């Protein structure tokens, strides 16, 4: 019991699995699958769509019980600390900014040019999405930001070298993925 109070990661994983298995079995599957475990269609008995997910739920539930019981008799040797949560938060923040930069920068620049009269009103990003340099704007800005910030995070320093390597990496990716092919759209151009 003391071990549980001290925090046994395997115990927590086991309990979460038990709860998730029960949630699947009693809430998610009954409410989000049309047919039962077994269904009867014109005098014929068939396996319904609920059976396979129910077996998956049972496996998660059963293995959760086993892990919980085992954790009471031996020490868990894994750790998931606040530092890991902080890392995921930081990583996700970088990704949210980078991917949104990648997604919208090309489109916004085209809209800005249209509004300032430097581009024809009838033009849209969709028309330009497979034309240089427009097709590279989002990929270069978002991709370079992504690679640069992650490198800086690991180095715990902002260096020109990291920035140049990030730009070079993006250039190489464009050469590999875009230049030789007519039928490939770099991110985010397929979304427009």
């Amino acid at each position, binding site marked *: 019991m003391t071990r549980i109070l001290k925090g046994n990661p395997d115990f927590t*994983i086991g309990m979460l699995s038990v709860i998730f*298995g029960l949630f699947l079995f009693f809430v998610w599957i009954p409410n989000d*699958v049309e047919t039962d475990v077994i269904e009867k269609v014109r005098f014929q008995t068939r396996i319904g769509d609920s059976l*396979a997910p129910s077996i*998956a739920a049972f496996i998660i539930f059963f293995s959760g019980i086993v892990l919980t019981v085992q954790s009471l008799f031996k020490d868990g040797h894994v750790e998931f600390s606040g530092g890991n949560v902080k890392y995921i938060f930081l990583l996700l923040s970088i990704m949210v900014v980078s991917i949104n930069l990648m997604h919208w920068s090309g489109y916004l620049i085209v809209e800005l040019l249209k509004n300032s009269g430097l581009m024809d009103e009838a033009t849209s990003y969709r028309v330009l999405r497979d034309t240089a340099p427009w097709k590279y704007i989002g990929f270069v800005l978002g991709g370079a930001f*992504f690679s640069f910030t992650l490198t800086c995070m*690991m180095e715990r320093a902002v260096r020109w070298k990291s920035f140049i390597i990030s730009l070079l990496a993006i250039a190489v990716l464009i050469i590999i*993925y875009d230049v030789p*092919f007519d039928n490939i759209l770099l*991110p985010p151009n397929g979304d427009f």
Partner: protein
Amino acid sequence: MDIFDYIWLGVLAVFQGPALFEIFGIGIPLSLVMVFAGLVLGILVGSTPGLAGPMAMAVSLPILISVFGYSADALLPVMAFLIGIMKGSTIGGAVPAILFNTPGTPDAYMTTLDGYPMSQKGQAGKALRVAHISSVSGDTFSDLVLFTCAPFLAVMVEAYLDLPEKTALIILSLSFIAAIVGSSVAKGLISMGLGMLVAYIGTGEDFYPRLTVGYESLASGFPVVSVILGVLIIGEVFKGIEDIWQNKYYKDNKTQIPVSNDNKLSFAEFKNLLPYIRNSAIIGTIIGALPGIGSTLAATLGYATGRRRFQKLKSADEPDFGEGAPAGIAATEAANSAVSGSNLIPVLSLGIPGNAAAVFLILAADSIGGFNPGPSVFRFSVEEVNPELVIAFGLFTIMFVANILNWTVGGMFMRSVGIMSKIPKHYVLPVVLLISLTAVYIQETSISVIWFTIGFGILGYIFRKLDISPLPFVIAYILAGKLESTARQAFDATNGDPYFLFSSMTSIVFITLAVITILFFMRAPKK
């Protein structure tokens, strides 16, 4: 059509396929060029710490599909490239292990024990030659076992197993993988259960897509590439980035490697190593044939067996294992490389992937179509040609060619890629992440798929942090659909018998073995 006709057609499919260019008027077949290119890339990737063969396979696949399309002609060149990567990375992993005490791949860890001391004594060249020859010997032996056993096993499965038995066999395979992989059986089963659950989202036979929580974008399930790349590759990269970030570690590897005059490998020295290579090749091949058991275990067992032999036979002036014994490198490298060929036995004969590389070969076959790895491939139909069987023998031919290339030019490439080991991981990992996400995007052309991939990447990261192996998740995800459809067919074929899994002695044996495997490994403590 007899068996020799099929073998010959397979060989011709590779050598008489479309030529990429000509040398002195002789066309060089595309598949040969692809296997060579894949091999070189594999050696480069294997020798770069932080990268691994499956990563290169994952990011290459969308490009290969874009180049070659989805036609039947695309299959052999694409598979040739992936097989080349698989084989190249097995020998490349030894390079940083020997030169810088940094294993390029996890299974090369044992190679550092003797490789790095040899390197410090100025024998890096000799250590690399031992690693190369042992690795290629183990791989070649393993491939020969694959060529012999896979068709035989597949024919047996087709002849003796009906639908209930096939369902029981998939259950046995999943139980085995969940039980054997990772730190505990319970965690293996959690990973497997989650993999099955994800596979069942948005699929099924009803008009209403199941388990989608009302999201239309999930109506046809998660994109396969986002699940597999996310959990297997992105999760690993996330963990790698955190390791560097948390440890506040980054430094350029500027180690100088001393050079002595003793860097050749004589025939007499090779002859002395042969028993170690032989024993480890057998160990690696047996372990590789069992789905889910990684090459790390094979390397450990090969090393331990080699050390026992060495202790009995060593002379007083020879360095011991762990102090720079060439036999230590030979025992490790032959064992971990012998896994790669026999790992394809369950893939080709049963359609069950046993490791991450096999997962990407199955993904390639699924994406392109025209070849469904499994027992039906080895149907030796006499009156009409079975195209899948021709492709299977084409793949064997490609593996054979890859081995010849590995024997001849592989060693030279291996000894010249030491520079790759010096690339700092903190530059490599963000680029790998970006390449992977770009690869996913060009295949699915939707930003939402990038988010799905990142989501599965976080799941893969959490798995690794909680000491849960992601491999049962991925293999269960791949096999879940097949398990459900085979069970449905078996249920229908037995007129709705709920006990169809116990309808024959064979399926009873499989199910009993599945239960025994789980119970046995649950009792036995794992390390």
